[in-house]
């Protein structure tokens, strides 16, 4: 026998099997990795999409108006008390409208255009100015620059969110001939060649739909709509400004993908906005009104102040109820409770309550606090009570864990020097467990801050225009504001909602940051 039989685990078959097993192992590992990758990807898509939206709401456009605060308009006889002035929306808006009509006289030609011009700025946008003037009556009669937010649709247009837009510089225009009033023919050697080829390319992509698109041509503060063109000349309907601008400045062409009938902003409004921008009257400023204004039906005027205050009031009620009760309950269960049937039921109960859907707590609040006790609807008091019941189990469970981690030697030492059970707990165990309990309380509050459903059921979804001052005032909360804004149809609400989400997440991040710091600072191993 010269042949040595191959080792039993080294034969072909075994090696193949081993290879298969190792491949299975690698696959298994890959599943795990891809699961984690999926979760992380989902998180980053979520954060990125909300962050991207929110950034576009971080700034907005304001238009400046140089007006004279004419007392005859803003404070006519009989309506000149500060209170009247602060409410005189019509008067202040009249100033702005006449300024706009002075800047764009062509709008007076037909009523449609006049109305569109007025839509550049929402009527109610003048309220802060009215308030400011009523507080500084010396300003009446003086010249002043009023800055008001641009209407939400045009703001979105300037941010490029209304429609895709192709923009290109055209060649020099050599001659401008006026065929009829507001109808001009622009000629220039090869000036429109680039535009022509763009149209050709687009026609290949979308077909004749390209004919429905508006092509605007602007130079300086003059803008017109191109009606027909060839390489060297174009027929233009003048929307605003004077045709002579075209021979002075090299014009720019804009092809707006969405046809005029499908968007909320007309070509005329775009032309005016571009003109205002060219005159340096439109400025992009930080969107501070998001933090200083209350809710509004107009996105450019709306802010989250009332909801922030409402959330704070609600959290205050919740904290005042849930934290002490939670701590006392956990002290009882952890330190004093005898091991009997009743405490066992309480424990199972608490664990269960922690997993009851939050909306059920809303039903409880609606039936008991509103229906039975007759507390006011929409009030932070009721919201706080419901959220307190909701967070109580979380706080109790966290505090019990903290109490449990205190070593028995501390209790024994206290008892040994003659402290009573109560003294040992309140003088020694509780202070040592303090940071852990505080951590649990903050986590409970963070959960309460993000809750929406129970607050909907007790009516905190109402439109609140005033900042609430007490716990029984009508109020709303940040997450509820997110919900109600997200149900609004207008496009401009999307970035606004995302911005409020960012505000809410800031609060949550701060609270969790405190928790992490506390853990780092006070973590003790016994």
């Amino acid at each position: 026998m010269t042949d040595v039989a191959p080792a039993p685990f080294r034969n072909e078959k075994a090696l193949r099997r081993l290879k298969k097993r190792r491949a299975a192992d690698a696959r298994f590992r890959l599943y795990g990795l891809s699961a984690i990758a999926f979760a992380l990807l989902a998180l980053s898509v979520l954060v990125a999409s909300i962050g991207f939206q929110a950034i576009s709401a971080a700034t907005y456009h304001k238009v400046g108006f140089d007006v004279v605060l004419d007392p005859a308009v803003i404070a006519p006889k009989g309506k000149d008390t500060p209170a009247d002035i602060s409410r005189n929306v019509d008067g202040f808006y009249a100033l702005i409208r006449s300024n706009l009509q002075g800047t764009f006289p062509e709008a007076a030609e037909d009523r449609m255009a006049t109305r569109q011009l007025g839509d550049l700025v929402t009527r109610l946008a003048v309220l802060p100015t009215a308030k400011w003037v009523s507080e500084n009556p010396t300003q009446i009669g003086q010249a002043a620059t009023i800055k008001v937010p641009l209407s939400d649709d045009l703001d979105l247009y300037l941010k490029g969110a209304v429609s895709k837009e192709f923009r290109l510089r055209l060649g020099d225009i050599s001659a401008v001939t006026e065929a009829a009033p507001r109808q001009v023919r622009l000629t220039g050697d090869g000036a429109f060649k680039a535009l022509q080829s763009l149209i050709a390319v687009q026609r290949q992509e979308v077909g004749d739909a390209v004919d429905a698109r508006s092509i605007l041509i602007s130079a300086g503060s003059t803008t017109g709509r191109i009606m027909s063109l060839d390489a060297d000349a174009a027929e233009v309907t003048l929307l605003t400004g004077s045709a002579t601008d075209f021979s002075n400045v090299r014009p720019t062409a804009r092809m707006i993908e969405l046809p005029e009938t499908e968007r909320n902003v007309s070509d005329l409004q775009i032309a005016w906005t571009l003109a205002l921008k060219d005159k340096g009257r439109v400025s992009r400023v930080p969107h501070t009104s998001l933090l200083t204004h209350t809710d509004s039906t107009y996105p450019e005027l709306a802010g989250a102040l009332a909801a922030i205050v409402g959330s704070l009031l609600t959290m205050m009620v919740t904290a005042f109820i849930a934290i002490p009760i939670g701590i006392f309950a956990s002290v009882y269960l952890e330190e004093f409770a005898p091991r009997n049937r009743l405490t066992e039921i309480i424990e199972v109960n608490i664990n269960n309550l922690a997993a009851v859907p939050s909306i059920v707590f809303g039903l409880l609040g609606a039936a008991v606090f509103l229906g039975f006790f007759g507390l006011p609807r929409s009030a932070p008091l009721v919201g706080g009570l419901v959220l307190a019941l909701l967070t109580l189990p979380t706080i109790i469970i966290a505090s019990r864990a903290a109490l449990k981690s205190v070593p028995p030697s501390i209790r024994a030492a206290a008892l040994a020097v003659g402290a009573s059970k109560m003294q040992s707990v309140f003088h020694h165990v509780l202070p040592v467990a303090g940071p852990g309990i505080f951590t649990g309380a903050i986590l409970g509050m963070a959960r309460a801050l993000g809750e929406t459903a129970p607050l909907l059921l007790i009516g905190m979804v109402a439109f609140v225009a005033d900042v609430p001052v007490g716990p029984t005032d009508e109020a709303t909360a940040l997450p509820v504001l997110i919900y109600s804004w997200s149900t609004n149809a207008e496009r401009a609400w999307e970035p606004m909602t995302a911005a409020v989400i960012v505000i809410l997440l800031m609060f949550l991040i701060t609270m969790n940051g405190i928790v992490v710091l506390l853990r780092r600072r006070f973590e003790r191993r016994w």
Partner: protein
Amino acid sequence: MVQQLGHLPMGWLMLALLAMLASGAFFVGRVQAARFSGPGSARVHSRPNYHGYYVAMWTFVPAMVVALGYGLFGDGLVRSMLSSELPANFQDMPRVELDVYLNSIARAAFHHGYSGADRVFSAITNRFLELQGLIKASTIVLALVCAATGFLLARRRVAPGFRARNRVEGGIEIFLFLCAAIAIATTIGIVASLLYESLRFFAEIPFWDFLFGTRWNAQTSAEFGALPLFFGTFMIALIAMLIAAPVGLFAAIYLSEYAGPKVRGWVKPILEILAGIPTVVYGFFALLVVAPAIRSVAIWINTTLISTGLASEPLLAAQPTSALAAGLVMGIMVIPFVSSLSDDVINAVPQTLRDAAYAMGATKSETVKHVVLPAALPGIIASLLLAVSRAIGETMIVVMAAGQRARISADPTADLTTITVQIVALLTGETEFDSPKTLSAFALGLVLFVVTLFFNLIALRVVQKYREKYD
């Protein structure tokens, strides 16, 4: 005069009164005890402070009970007294209308009386204020009497041999117990309110029609067949679990078995961020990003199928809000619930079991599949059950991204509605408490509570048993 009393701000008044009574009693008790417990005095059981606390306790608690009684029943008492005095034509009013009327009376009274032209209203408002004043005044008197009685009785017991500390600590312990019992009170409150309103609902709508009816149209016509809602809830929870279960489980296995401490230290907290994001944010994400994406994919599938001749008409509903969008996002939300609990139980499996498997030549994945997972199975099942219960009870995501139409459809791109969506739809806005429409929300709530309770109880029981096994 009595009417003026009706305007008393009872909350603040009682608070101030109680604080004053308690602190006064404390000082009286303390001073009294200090007299006999100076230096050189022999055999005093408790320190003067405890005597003070004792007296304060007995002064405070009876008065507090009276104040609480007023808070709970005062308003109702005033109303029932008033309505029993009302003239005959009010007595015939339906209960709801009477309540509304009384509410407006109370509001007028709250804003310092009614000075309008309605004589009857004005008279009733005044009478309301009178009754309120009467009740308030008698509450204060009663509270004072109770406090005084308690104070006198407690003060008499202050003596050197009296074990004041033990008594005070006994009192504190009772208070601590009451705090713990609030959890039970909450459960009882939930069950009682849900049951009470549901029974009223089932008095009008037969129970079986509700449970197995297939037409739900609570808002417009009174059709209360909740089966489509149960189906929608089940469908969305199923989609969510189809995502969360494998992802969460594999993430937990990878983190506990494969990942090094550094990766684990980073990934675990990041996964937990998912659990900390408010659900309304997920809802917004579903509405803004996921639902439109799913819709366009569904439309693309439809057009491809039609253009290739595989289908003659659109196969998928491709609605702007869909069960798939809600389920997908809910699945992402539920991942950490699965992964973190599973991670805990996998880590709790003793290392010796793994070592034994390795010693037999098993690869890592074989060890996980044949040793670790079977050992951790009960805990993993518990984590899945808890996640299911989360998914069933989740509200905001489905409210924002699932839709309002009650129907039974297996198409995941169609919009479905769920129990929670309907509860929110029925109870937001102006609601009157007696219509079957509102009551049906409580019946739905009861179903939701019972189902989630069932899942939770099993899961908690399993977790508890399992914990004992390896401890």
